[in-house]
Every structure is written in C-alpha cells, then in structure tokens.
C-alpha cells in the first residue's frame, strides 16, 4: 500500500505547520499539493519554502538541482477538488473538531477510495475526527512537531476504526519522508501535548502565585534539567493565544484541572501580550524587560 503513495496533499498549507509539512513531502520526492482557502497565504508560504530550500542549498544540505526539483513538486491550489489526485491527505487546519470532521467528510466525496486521510491534530481524538467521514478505517493521526521541516518526530496514532494497513502505509510514508514515527494511543494530546500543555499551565500558575519571576523559572529549568529553552520563553514562542486554544481543546476532553486555562493566561491575552508575535508576553522583546515578578 505504501508504494501507492505518490501524491500528498496538505490542507492548511498556508499556515506555518502546513507549509512545513509540505516542505517535508516535497523534499522527500512526493508530488505535493499545497491546499489552503487563501491564495495569498499559499503564495506567502511558497516564498517561505523557497527561502528555506535556498538556505538548505547554502548549508550544503541539498544541491541546486534537488532544490529546483523539490519546488517543482510543490503545487499550490485553493480548489479542494484538486485533492482528488492525492493518495494521502494530511490536514493541518484549525484545531477544532467540527472543522476537521467537515473537511474529511467533504474530501471523502472528492478523493478516490484508496486515499488515506491523516490528521495533524495535537489535542483532538483521531477516532472522533474520523467519525462520520465515510472512511473511518483510512484515517490516521500524524502529529508533526513545529517547525515540521526541521523536526523529525511524528506521533503516529490509530483511531478505533483505523485499519492496520492504513496505519502501516501512513507510517511507511513518514519513514520515506525522512521522519521518525513513534506510536502513541488515541488519547488527548498523545504524549507530547499531554505532558506539555498541563506543564506550561503549571508554570503560568506558579508565576501567578508569585513563586518566582519568569526569568528565574526559565533559568531554573534550563540549569537543573538541561532544557534548551525555558517554558516562559517557549510559551512566548508558541503564542499565549495558541496556549489558550490548546487548553480549550484539551480541557473539555480530559477534565484535567491542570489543562484548564489559567486566569493569568486569559488576562495576558486580553492585554495583547501574546508572546513574540506581539512583541510582549512573559518577556518584552523590545526592551528585554520581563512580565511579572
């Protein structure tokens, strides 16, 4: 079955994650259909991909010929019907269950029988995303890490109705794409976000409790545990509004109090302190001053 995967479509390819996945597929030799509702977002993502490949050439990671071939394999489209050509569709659209369900149900009418649907969800259930789409046995979880074009890890997850053949074919695709698939169960957040979302919330609550400053919390965890990046710095990079959305996706499915949105997080988002994207989060990226303390 894996040999049949020649054309891969990415839904939401105008976003950072989708664009990164498109780079992974095109770089590995797959014809890649980059789909997004916005032509503008697709054009921007294509330019960023071209820039990424140019850097790869400059660093000796690929030749100019390989770069040209990878870019030639990358095709933008805002017409969902074009995905009828895909053997594998990977969705990286908004992290909302009904949006993903509707997308797969629509694609079920467009794509041929053999097409596998993969979800890049980081918090939602693969079984629930697949539910009602009409091909529940051909839906699999394929969670890439940001930035997808740099990170090798993929959390691979089968839903209750996923067939072994689908899982094997999707897993084989990730290996051919140069990634490292690791199997997890269909539980909210899989491994990575099941550990990270509550942990990041714990950090925010510790700041709210005046345990220590964001700077000292980051320093403590980097020095004690060898983390490359402190959690406050990471939250600013992820975006505090994104952390809210992760909580809102995660908490209702787990009822884990640690996954509930911390009040300080909501206040910071309301104050426009979204992290690096807005110039201020726990740290101030204009003046190097820190929030809290």
């Amino acid at each position: 079955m894996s040999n049949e995967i020649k054309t891969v479509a990415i839904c939401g390819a105008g976003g950072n994650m989708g664009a990164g996945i498109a780079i992974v597929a095109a770089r590995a030799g797959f014809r890649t259909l980059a789909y997004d509702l916005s032509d503008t977002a697709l054009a921007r993502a294509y330019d960023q991909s071209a820039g990424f490949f140019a850097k790869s050439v400059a660093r000796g990671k690929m030749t100019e010929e390989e770069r040209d071939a990878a870019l030639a394999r990358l095709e933008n489209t805002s017409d969902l019907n074009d995905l009828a050509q895909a053997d594998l569709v990977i969705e990286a659209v908004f992290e909302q269950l009904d949006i993903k369900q509707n997308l797969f149900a629509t694609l079920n009418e467009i794509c041929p029988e053999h097409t596998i649907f993969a979800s890049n969800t980081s918090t939602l259930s693969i079984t629930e995303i697949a539910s009602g789409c009409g091909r529940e046995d051909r839906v699999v979880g394929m969670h890439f890490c940001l930035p997808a074009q740099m990170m090798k890890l993929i959390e691979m997850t089968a839903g209750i109705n996923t067939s072994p053949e689908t899982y094997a074919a999707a897993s084989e695709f990730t290996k051919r794409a140069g990634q490292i698939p690791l199997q997890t169960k269909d539980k909210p957040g899989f491994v990575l976000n099941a550990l990270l979302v509550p942990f990041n919330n714990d950090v925010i609550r510790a700041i709210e409790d005046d345990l220590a400053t964001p700077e000292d919390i980051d320093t403590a965890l980097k020095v004690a545990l060898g983390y490359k990046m402190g959690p406050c710095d990471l939250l600013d990079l992820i975006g505090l509004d994104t952390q809210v959305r992760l909580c809102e996706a995660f908490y209702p499915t787990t009822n884990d109090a640690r996954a509930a949105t911390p009040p300080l997080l909501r206040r910071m988002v309301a104050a426009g302190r979204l992290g690096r994207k807005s110039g201020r989060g726990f740290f101030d990226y204009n003046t190097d001053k820190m929030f809290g303390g």
Partner: protein
Amino acid sequence: MGYEIKQNGDSRSFPAGDAFLADSIPGADIVLHLGTPLETDASKAAVLVELDTECLGVHTGEDSGREGSNVVGFARYRNGNDAPSPLIEMVRQPETLQTAIEAAKTMFEAAGFTVVVCSDQVGRIVDRLVRPKYNDALRFLDEGLARADDMDLICKMGLGYRDGPIERAVRGDLARHFDVSNARYRATGQIAYVPARRAAVAKMREDK
C-alpha cells in the same frame, strides 16, 4: 564574601568532598546550616538553612505573612542521587531582608553556582513544576499510551529535552520521587502530586 559552614550529617547540596565545603571560614559574615539547628544571628549578613522537602518556615516559624529576617533557605537542585546540578534555589519569605538575599546570591555566584530566588513553597521551583510531569509519564506508561523508550524519545526529539521523564525519574530513584511528590501533595492536596503507582511500589520496596 566568605562563609562559615555548620554541618551535621550528609548534605544533599554538598556531598562529602564537594569543593564548596573546603572554603568554610570560621566567623565569616555568612553562615550556612547543613543539617544543624538554625541559630539566628541578626549581626550576620545572611544565615542560610539547607532545605530538603520542607519549607523554610519549619525552621524559622511563621507570622501570618509577616515572617522574614536575614535567614534564607536554599537547596542545590539534585535529581535523586545524580550529581548535584549547578543550580541553587534560594528561598525567601515575605519580609526577608533584600540585603541577605543579595549577600547570599553574591556568595553562591562567586562559588560558580547559578542562583534563582523563589517564595517559600514546598518543592520550590523545579520540583513543583516537574514532579507532576513525572507522575503523568509514569501513569501513561501504566495506561499503555506509549512504551517508556518511545515516551522519552518523544520528549527528547519533540521538546529538546536532554533526557526523557521516565528515564529521569527512574535514574533519580522512584522512591525519592515518591518522597518529594508526596511532600507537596500533603502540603497542597493537589492530585497532580499524588505519587504514581510505580513510585509507590518503589517506596514500599524501599521500606520493606
């Protein structure tokens, strides 16, 4: 700034042979208590008390949020019986003298340590934040979410951690994890700190 060490028994922060122990100067302006009862002395720049899982208030007493003096708590972070890290977590109370914190910080930094300051809470910064994660990972292992090696690899590859939560908790001794996590559970009642089954098993085996 020099320091005098008053020690009784082993120190988790400075095991026997640690270079820091060798530079103790009798009568210095900063005093460190490593296992010895706190002797308050307002004439000193700072009086430091090594902490394990307890709060500083256990040594100083508390006064409805008005507590604080030149006494500062501290612990050098150490994962179980791994070699101690370069991190010193210093513990302040609401009214702790800033001059005492600065004197202690300067002394530790001069000795090559990295210093952070936190309020007087069980688990300080690192254990407060990482112990729930270890409990989660140990529970995930029991639930079959992923194999131990895969879970560790996911964290290393996905988050850039030097080691994964399972290997770190096991290497640090699961019975020790039980003690640290349970201390915070008893202090806060938060279920995230209820030691995971595997930690409870290790603790029971240690106590046999």
